[in-house]
């Protein structure tokens, strides 16, 4: 007979004890479920808040009555007629400038129409309502408009349109677009990745495959891990000191004969972003390389491979999925960063697209920040639209990361 047996509860005592265990299990489950609910509610609130701002009724007036410039309703004008209207109503200088940007004859009808609206007729937005107000308080809104702005037109407006994505910046929210900012963000990310990916993967390979495990490499490793958690504004300060000031001849392009810029270029900002994501890329690549089993390295060495052949033919191909996933997730971080860009000198109002390393630039988060700080409600509406653009960009990046992982992942 086992002498320990009578130390366990039996019969009723056991059942009571078991019920106690079930109770704590239920408490645990309820706690976890409420945590999940809180998380889901906050995320839904965030989404609702953004979408709420990007659609809704707007009341606006024309500063110039369209009937004074053309007899037809505006949107029935043909492309040549619109060109005529423009020619007749804006200054010659402004017309030539537009014509130089893109020849009038080659512009689409929609493009010309928005030019006519922006330059000649000019829209004056009186009020903007959120999506929820527009849906549930339509009659109140109509009454309010009729009373306060008898001349205004009330229209349901989708602020996030194709035009919003493709139009350049403008000082009028009704015509402003995010193109300059989107392109700026893409340039930044492109430069950051081209800079940080090779360096990050190289450093990770060295740390994992070559470096002896000694105090020195441990110190370096700890530093890299800590750098990943340094607030981004600190990287901004570094970028300002290093890329904007010290390396100005390089980042302004003056050593390449570019004269019309200072160090506050998309190049300097891209490098700053590169340094910002470098620790993340290194750590992710290290994890991916670590996940390649040692037995595979031994197999390669066992048939007489050199270290380089082992790395190039086996270690890297088997870690590429992890490296790419890590890189894309780091990009997601970079694309949402605002603080370092402000420090290194992103422009807040700029209408020309970045067209090279040494251009001035703005980026989506900068633009969003700028628009949300404006007083007029129509700017808040386009800020909400820009946030949606940014989120879609982030979502597609993350989706790409998942696809790449599934595509490249090999069974080991």
């Amino acid at each position, binding site marked *: 007979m086992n002498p320990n047996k009578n130390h366990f509860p039996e019969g009723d005592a056991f059942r009571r004890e078991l019920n106690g265990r079930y109770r704590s299990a239920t408490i645990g489950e309820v706690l976890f479920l409420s945590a999940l609910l809180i998380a889901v509610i906050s995320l839904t609130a965030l989404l609702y808040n953004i979408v709420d701002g990007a659609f809704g009724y707007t009341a606006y007036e024309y500063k110039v009555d369209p009937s004074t410039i053309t007899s037809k309703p505006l949107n029935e004008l043909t492309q040549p007629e619109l060109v005529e209207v423009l020619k007749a109503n804006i200054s010659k200088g402004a017309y030539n400038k537009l014509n130089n940007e893109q020849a009038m004859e080659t512009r689409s009808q929609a493009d010309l129409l928005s030019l006519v609206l922006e330059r000649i007729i000019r829209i004056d937005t009186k009020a903007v309502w959120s999506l929820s107000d527009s849906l549930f308080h339509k009659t109140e809104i109509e009454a309010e408009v009729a009373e306060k702005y008898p001349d205004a037109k009330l229209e349901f407006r989708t602020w996030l349109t194709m035009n919003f994505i493709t139009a350049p910046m403008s000082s009028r929210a009704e015509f402003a677009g995010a193109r300059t900012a989107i392109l700026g963000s893409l340039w930044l990310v492109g430069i950051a990745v081209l800079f940080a990916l090779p360096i990050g993967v190289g450093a990770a390979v060295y740390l994992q495959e070559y470096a*002896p*495990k000694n105090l020195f490499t441990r110190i370096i490793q700890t530093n890299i891990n800590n750098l990943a958690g340094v607030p981004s504004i600190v990287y901004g300060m570094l970028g300002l000191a290093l890329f904007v000031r010290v390396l100005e001849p390089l980042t302004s392009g003056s050593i390449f004969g570019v004269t019309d810029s200072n160090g506050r270029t998309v190049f300097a900002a891209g490098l700053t972003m590169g340094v910002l994501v470098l620790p993340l890329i290194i750590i992710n690549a290290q994890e991916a390389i670590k996940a390649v*089993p040692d*037995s*595979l*390295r*031994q*197999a*390669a*060495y*066992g*048939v*007489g*491979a*050199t270290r380089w*052949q082992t790395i190039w*033919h*086996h270690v890297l191909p*088997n870690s590429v999925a992890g490296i790419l996933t890590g890189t894309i997730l780091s990009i997601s971080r970079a694309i949402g960063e605002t603080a370092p860009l402000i420090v290194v000198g992103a422009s807040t109002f700029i209408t020309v697209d970045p067209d090279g390393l040494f251009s001035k630039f703005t980026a989506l988060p900068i633009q969003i920040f700028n628009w949300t700080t404006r007083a007029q409600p129509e700017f808040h509406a386009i800020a909400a639209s820009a946030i949606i653009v940014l989120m879609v960009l982030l979502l597609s990046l993350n989706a790409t990361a998942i696809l790449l992982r599934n595509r490249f992942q*090999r*069974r*080991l």
Partner: protein
Amino acid sequence: MENNVEPEYAIVTNDLSIHYGSYTAVKGVNVKVEKQKITAIIGPSGCGKSTLLRSFNRMNDFVPNCRVTGELLLQGQNLYSKDVDPVEARRRIGMVFQKPNPFPKSIYENIAWGARINGFKGNMDELVEQSLRGAALWEEVKDLLQKSAYELSGGQQQRLCIARTIAIQPEIILMDEPASALDPISTLRIEELMQELKKNYTIIIVTHNMQQAARASDYTAMMMIDDQRSGGVIEFDDTKKIFTRPKDKRTEDYVTGRFG
């Protein structure tokens, strides 16, 4: 096959010791491994068999702070002297690991890769076929050469690893418990294979399986740890002698299963 000429040796060790940091895992090994014979290394777990085997083709270069003292002579040259290139040594001394570790590539590539990186210029298809035949795997996989090696069974994978090793035509093949994860039938096939391979290669095999050592090997090295936990070869002789008339009492206890 008794004759009077001095047999040729593939490996001769002189007071070979292997240290992990300050711990001496294997101490003072003096053995002569005869060419084109199968030499088995037996002994209890942790006595340094794998450590010793890895030192034979410098695989322990990759173990941090592993150090080798003494001499390990291959045709009179010390494998650990400065002018020996470890990559070349590994090409001449192939290794089959305890756990099958094919590359995550096709069956064909598994064999072709080692040959290619070593500058093989001949007909690759022929080499692949010949190596797979040599490892008694050809008949099973000849129609699946482009399939991933991971789709093979464990025993087939291990034979693929043997094929991969013989494809680079080494002089010596080291096997660390090649059959420990295999069923009795696959184990037997690998033993038959070793008998076939020994016509061309010198084979050194680590095994925990006494019957396997007795059945398949010509010579046996018995290893045991001393009171400082350092392993050493306590007896090295004809396999027949080790299993029938061992000189050392500890060997006798071990091979008859009375150990520990």
